[in-house]
């Protein structure tokens, strides 16, 4: 009996739910559309170029990404642009993620992390770029790079470093190391940008960031330019693995390695110069037997 009595209520409940959904879904959709439109508008207001937004929209649409997911991608860029900070790297990282088929739930945290690290980096980079000796370095270098472009490149490199688990203190330490007078006097803007770019990739950075900073400063003082700098992480990694000693301490002919591509050259150079003659250690112990004054075999010699 009770079962029969309950049936009309069940039917009425389902009907009510269906009606509610029919009303709510379009309303939610409209709200989302409105919300997304507002987001796009706020992006434009923040100074992000419409063409850039259109590029991203067309790329996401082609990859089945919803407007809601797109909003999560654009959000960090808008947050940066609203603070007058460069947002281009957010777009580039988003494009890269889409090209690589990274799911949006993995893409969004990466972009948010990049946004946060950019904000932290500004506090380090802007005062450094504003220094008079840095401005003097830029003028002297003769490189065709503007102050804003230089600052943005440093922000890009610094924020990537921080997104890669480099602490603000470590990054600050790097800028102090490369900001020494002797280093700046021998550096160019492109070398400085390269120095910040390679910082997270040096094998000593994780445990000894100050050591990495010192190694980078020494490289700049040695006249390394951007092209040389980008070979430094690979060279130091190879040196560390080969000698089984800490990174920079075993840069066994590192300049030679970067030129020739391998540390092997140093050993072969020694061979060529006859330094294997005596085996261990030293080179000249045997073979001095008939030197004057020593009439016969003695010491290490032969007649």
């Amino acid at each position, binding site marked *: 009996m009770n079962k029969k009595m309950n049936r009309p209520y069940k039917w009425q409940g389902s009907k009510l739910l269906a009606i509610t959904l029919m009303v709510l879904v379009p309303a939610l959709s409209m709200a989302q559309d409105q919300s997304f439109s507002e987001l796009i508008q706020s992006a434009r207001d923040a100074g992000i170029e419409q063409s850039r937004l259109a590029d991203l929209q067309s*790329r996401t649409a082609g990859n089945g990404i919803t407007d809601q997911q797109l909003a999560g991608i654009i959000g960090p860029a808008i947050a940066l642009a609203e603070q007058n900070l460069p947002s281009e790297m957010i777009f580039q*990282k988003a494009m890269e993620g889409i*090209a*690589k088929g990274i799911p949006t739930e*993995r893409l969004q945290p*990466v972009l948010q992390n*990049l946004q946060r690290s950019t904000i932290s980096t500004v506090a380090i980079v802007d005062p450094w770029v504003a220094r008079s000796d840095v401005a003097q370095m830029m003028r002297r270098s003769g490189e065709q790079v503007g102050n804003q*472009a230089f600052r943005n490149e440093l922000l890009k490199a610094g924020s990537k470093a921080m997104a890669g688990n480099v602490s603000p203190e470590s990054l600050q330490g790097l800028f102090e190391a490369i900001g020494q007078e002797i280093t700046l006097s021998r550096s160019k803007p*492109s070398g400085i*940008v*390269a120095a910040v770019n390679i910082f997270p990739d040096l094998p000593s950075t994780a445990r000894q960031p100050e050591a990495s900073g*010192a190694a980078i400063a020494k490289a700049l003082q*040695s006249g*390394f*330019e*951007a*092209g040389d*700098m*980008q070979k430094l992480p*690979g060279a130091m990694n*190879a040196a560390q*693995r*080969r*000698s*089984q*000693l800490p990174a*920079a*301490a*075993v*840069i*066994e*002919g590192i*300049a*030679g390695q970067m*030129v020739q591509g391998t540390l*092997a*050259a140093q050993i*072969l*150079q020694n*061979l060529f*110069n*006859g330094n*294997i*003659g*005596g*085996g*261990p*250690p*030293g080179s*000249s*112990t*045997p*073979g*001095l037997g008939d*030197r004057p*004054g*020593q*009439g016969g075999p003695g*010491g290490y010699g*032969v007649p």
Partner: protein
Amino acid sequence: MIKWMVSMASLLILPLDGNAQQWQGQITVDSRVGYSTNTILNPFHGEWDRSTGSGYGLIAPMGQLSRNSERYSADFSGGGVLEPFFDGRQTLKGGFALMNLRRRIGSSWSAGVETGSRYFSSSFDQSMVWVQPTLTWSPTLFSQIRLKAGSTFRDYSNDYQDQEEAEITQNDRFDLYGVEYEAWPTFTWRISTGVYGNMDDPTDNLSFMINSDQHISDAFRLTLRLNADSYSYQLMHEVGSGGTGGPIGGGDDGYITLDETDRLLRAGLSGRLRVSPSFSLTLNLDHLSLHSSASEQTLSDYQLSTGVRYTFQPSLGGRGKARAQWDQNGNQSVMLKVNYSGAGQLYLIGDFNDWENPGIPLSRQSSNRYAAQLSLPTGSYEYKILLIEGTEKKWIGFSEDTYTVSDGFGGSNGLVFIQ
């Protein structure tokens, strides 16, 4: 001894399997012509003979293989030598093999063993085997101290068949030690010093070495070497006559035993000019000065040589990976060259094309060489190489010597700076 060496090698090499990095190799062929007044200054010769000054030639093909993992590394070197003399003396010919093994034992310590052997023959037969454990400490970022001690076994016999001199056969064992210090004042300048001695009498007959190795430019490298050695021995002097050469021992009427010392100074200067990625020109100057307290004589010898060096680095185990090389031709014009072995079409994709698939096609220049010409403003750019084979798309990994950075997604990108 041999068993011990094999055991040591096995212990150190076995962990290199598994997650080891790929093999790296280098082949070098050195050729040289020169003149010396003492054969001990000749490359590889190692025996004192200043009977006549002579011109010489040299050709020495050499190879090296390296392999390493997180805690272990190994280097294997070997080569052959042919060194003819222009005065009719017998050609020096022979070969050598070296093995260096290292294991990391602490944050700034590593231990290992260096071992090698060589055999050379000319008017003599000379063979040598040595093994020495090493302990290396890196006290600061740009310095290291290495302790080494071991034994050298040396066999020597002359081959004066057509001469009246007596044939001599000698088997020696030297127990030697060394303390070396190396420092890098800059990335392009290395200074190394060392003191070496005999473990039987550690403070006697010391040998000192100092080397300065300076990369003047990418193409030119200069090395300065200084060595100082002293050799003490006892010699019987005839009382009153001042003659030399008597039997060592003393006590006979008319003879006294005196301590004598030979001091040897050697200075060398080497320059190498790279004229192409594979070829270098070399110039070597050596001077040797020997002062003997017994004869009160000072002798001087020199060696001068010049040559051509060919260096080749074969690709070992890197198949399926791309080696990217960027050349900046003008202000903004850059050429990317990619070495890759495999089927399919390669595309360049990165920050410069907004990571748009499939990217910029790389044109095939030879069987494993691809290239693309781009115009890029100053800045840093991340990129990847995409392989499309039929309907299949695949990202190509980079070789170890291509600069890569983390992409934040668990993978890596190539990175290039445009100046």
